[in-house]
């Protein structure tokens, strides 16, 4: 079944954030870059707070701090002054300028303002990438892709063919990016990975402190993306108009491998097949061992996993890949949900559900009230930390994955891609199921089977609320 919650007017406990929030992330993955959000001060502060909590890194994002005057008479002056100040303090090589609901509603033309700004100031070497991200235009996931797409379309220039591979990634963790790079190196490939926030948003503690962290994709590498031998993009659920890989294919004829995030055996196989095809290098023994270990783990845990009934929610691309892992291991999904309005999740996954003998609910534009309503039979949830709502209301334990993770440390270090990462995620899922079982089974068995004379009436059974803390509204 494919549900869209839009029959309700109010969103109750959202499963999404807004576009500019998603658009900050790719810019944090460019070398020597900064972001300015054109709108009122609050939006950028909220987003910074959200990201700082997840990554545990300073997240410096400027705002044009629109006030009443700017809102009435236009924010051009604020935007230009903001750029001046940003340049002065951070001296970045590239600046992403993102719009907000407010800037879009009052009709700000940031393309014109920013190019005019560079001319006026004679800043010929500076780069500004303006991205239109009205908060109401989509979720943070669309904002992320809108930014990556615009970075590519803004910077890429026709380049003679070269031997590098383009690798374009969705919002995965810095640890995931490092793993992808390790695999690329093992396959002896030279590549441009975009956006690369593996260091900028997970930096080693070194002194002195630098306002703009080292690392990130080099601008000249992005410019040269059209000359690459191919593009590998983890963007299976992407609409074409948001897909940088499709853009490079269409405009510059770069062959595109549009793949799922390599989570699970099949998805990782697809990734390695593509790399093998591109590089002509055979998958090295070390990686084959990792694959073998993942298979071994899957077999070792299969009976535990087969008792899992999962709720998988969050950004569509990650949800798709995690669903695959769950399907491979018998942690069959009950509910598959994303905050995005449109995503091909249902079409892509439906054909893979033949072995699942319960109905699977697909929810788009999801909020947690909708997710909860369809998750009564689930015993494990996988997604960002807002899913703790499911734990609190229904006792469904949560495996934290994706963005944002607010109530635990280490969101930036969660590894779930490749054979090794898949194994770590799978172990976590299995262990969560085991912990839940061990926590409750003594009580459950007593409740179900014990018929001794001293059996307590049901209502007064000790710990009868064992399924987790419950708070009624």
């Amino acid at each position: 079944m494919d549900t869209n919650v839009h029959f309700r007017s109010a969103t109750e406990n959202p499963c999404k954030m807004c576009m500019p929030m998603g658009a900050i992330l790719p810019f944090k993955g460019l070398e020597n870059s900064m972001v300015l959000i054109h709108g009122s001060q609050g939006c950028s502060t909220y987003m910074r707070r959200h990201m700082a909590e997840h990554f545990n890194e300073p997240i410096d994002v400027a705002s044009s701090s629109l006030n009443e005057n700017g809102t009435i008479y236009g924010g051009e002056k604020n935007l230009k002054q903001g750029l001046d100040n940003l340049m002065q303090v951070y001296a970045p090589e590239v600046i992403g300028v993102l719009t907000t609901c407010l800037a879009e509603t009052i009709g700000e033309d940031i393309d014109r303002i920013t190019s005019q700004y560079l001319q006026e100031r004679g800043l010929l070497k500076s780069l500004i990438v303006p991205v239109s991200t009205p908060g109401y235009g989509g979720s943070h996931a669309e904002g992320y892709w809108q930014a990556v797409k615009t970075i590519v379309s803004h910077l890429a220039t026709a380049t003679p063919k070269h031997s590098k591979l383009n690798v374009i990634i969705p919002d995965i963790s810095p640890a995931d990016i490092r793993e992808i790079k390790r695999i690329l190196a093992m396959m002896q490939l030279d590549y441009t990975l975009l956006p690369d926030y593996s260091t900028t948003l997970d930096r080693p503690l070194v002194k002195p402190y630098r306002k703009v962290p080292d690392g990130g994709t080099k601008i000249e590498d992005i410019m040269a993306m059209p000359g690459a031998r191919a593009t590998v993009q983890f963007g299976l659920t992407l609409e074409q108009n948001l897909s940088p890989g499709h853009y490079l294919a269409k405009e510059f004829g770069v062959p595109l491998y549009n793949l799922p995030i390599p989570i699970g055996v099949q998805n990782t196989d697809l990734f390695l097949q593509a790399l093998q095809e591109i590089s002509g290098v055979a998958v090295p023994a070390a990686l084959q061992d990792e694959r073998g270990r993942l298979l071994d783990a899957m077999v070792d845990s299969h009976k535990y996993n087969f008792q899992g009934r999962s709720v998988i929610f969050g950004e569509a691309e990650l949800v798709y890949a995690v669903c695959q892992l769950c399907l491979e291991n018998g942690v069959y999904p009950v509910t598959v949900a994303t905050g995005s309005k449109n995503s091909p999740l249902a079409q892509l996954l439906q054909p893979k559900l033949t072995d699942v003998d319960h109905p699977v609910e697909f929810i788009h534009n999801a909020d947690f009230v909708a997710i909860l309503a369809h998750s009564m039979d689930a015993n494990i949830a996988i997604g960002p930390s807002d899913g703790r709502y499911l734990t609190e209301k229904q006792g469904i334990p949560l495996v934290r994955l994706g963005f944002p993770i607010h109530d635990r440390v280490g969101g930036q270090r969660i590894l779930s891609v490749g054979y090794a990462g898949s194994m770590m995620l799978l172990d976590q899922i299995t262990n969560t199921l085991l912990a839940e079982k061990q926590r409750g089974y003594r009580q459950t068995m007593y409740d179900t089977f014990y018929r001794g004379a001293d059996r307590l009436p049901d209502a007064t059974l000790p710990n009868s609320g064992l399924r987790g803390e419950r708070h009624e509204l």
Partner: protein
Amino acid sequence: MVNEQAIAARTASIKTKGQQKQQVACDTDSVAGAVSQRACVYSGARVVLNPITDAVHLVHGPIGCASYTWDIRGSLSSGSELYRNSFSTDLQEEDVIFGGEKKLVSSIDELVSKYQPELVFVYSTCIVGVIGDDLQAVCKAAEKKHNIRIIPVQSSGFAGNKSAGYRAACDALLKIMPNEGPVEQKGNTVNYLGDFNLAGEIWIIKDYLKRIGIEVNATFTGDSSYRTLQRAPQAALNIMQCAGSMAYLAQRMEDIYAIPYLRVSFLGLTDTAASLRSIAASFSDPMLAHRTEALIATETATINRQLEAYRTKFKGKKAAIFVGGGFKAISLIKQFRELNIEVVMIGTQTGKQEDYAVMQELVNDGTVILDDANPAELEKFMVEKGANILVGGVKERPLAYKLGVAFIDHNHDRKHPLSGFVGAVNFAQEVYSTLCSPVWHYV
């Protein structure tokens, strides 16, 4: 203070005590591009009103504004948990073009029939005014239809900063109480303003007051409900902690209901004791003063010994403070002093003239005082002044850690109380756990 990277427009907002005559400039609009740490009007209003436990808090606007404020605060409730939900009209492109009133009306209808609240707040966000939605009219009509209170909160984000949001929240609170006064007021009762019951702080203070012989009538707004707020005019005295958010409400309640107000602070040993004494002294009952002294004596007896141990450990350490409002900043200077720690940098997001005057008075020469600081300035002065510890919010924490500086969360999402005598010990313990952690030996 020569810094080639400094922003000229920020000069008036930074000063060093003993070096410049002028007081630091504050209450100004943030400088564009300066990476201000400030939040918006909506955020201010939401912080103040959100702890009202049995209200539906509906954000009229696009999803972000609601998403970023879902259950991130640590206010506790002894009753309803309704306030912990995030409700939003989640405006879409078509609503922005054709107006969002229809969606607002049906959202209110839906939520009222589902949750049966007696009170609904509808917060406006930045674009609501721009797209021309008439919040007032929609709420008025909905009140009639559902026969409950549905109060619009005028919190468009761009029309000022967090302080303007406090004001909008106070206006909304005034609408809950009967609009005529004076009301018959009861004996030894107070309303407690400006505490949001983070980690149960209100419960701690309520207990102290009860032991003295004073009953807390209504609390603003931690652990409050529609009914308790309605009866607020019956108290004999308003005691007010966070003045930044509540001074306006206290003043208006004095005007309307003739309830006098008293500034208090339960942060730190000295302030807590002094506040209890002045509350007791506000009533004519002499027994109150006796009981107050007894309470202070019992509570401080053990605590002083505990704190003394910490004082020795903290000797010679320096603190930097960057918090939301003036009240907190001022209390922190005193609290650090109690712990033998010198404040070398202090600033707020939204402090007022009079707050900065007090800070200026309290700190030593050479202390940097700054309003609406940004990360670059925080970094510069923490390093320059050799701060060992920073007090701030979530955004400032990673910066402190990267600089090898210890950190105290003085934010709305903390999970341990910092109020009262027990809070003073918690505070010292937290300072200890971050300042004296072995990890600093390795970085």
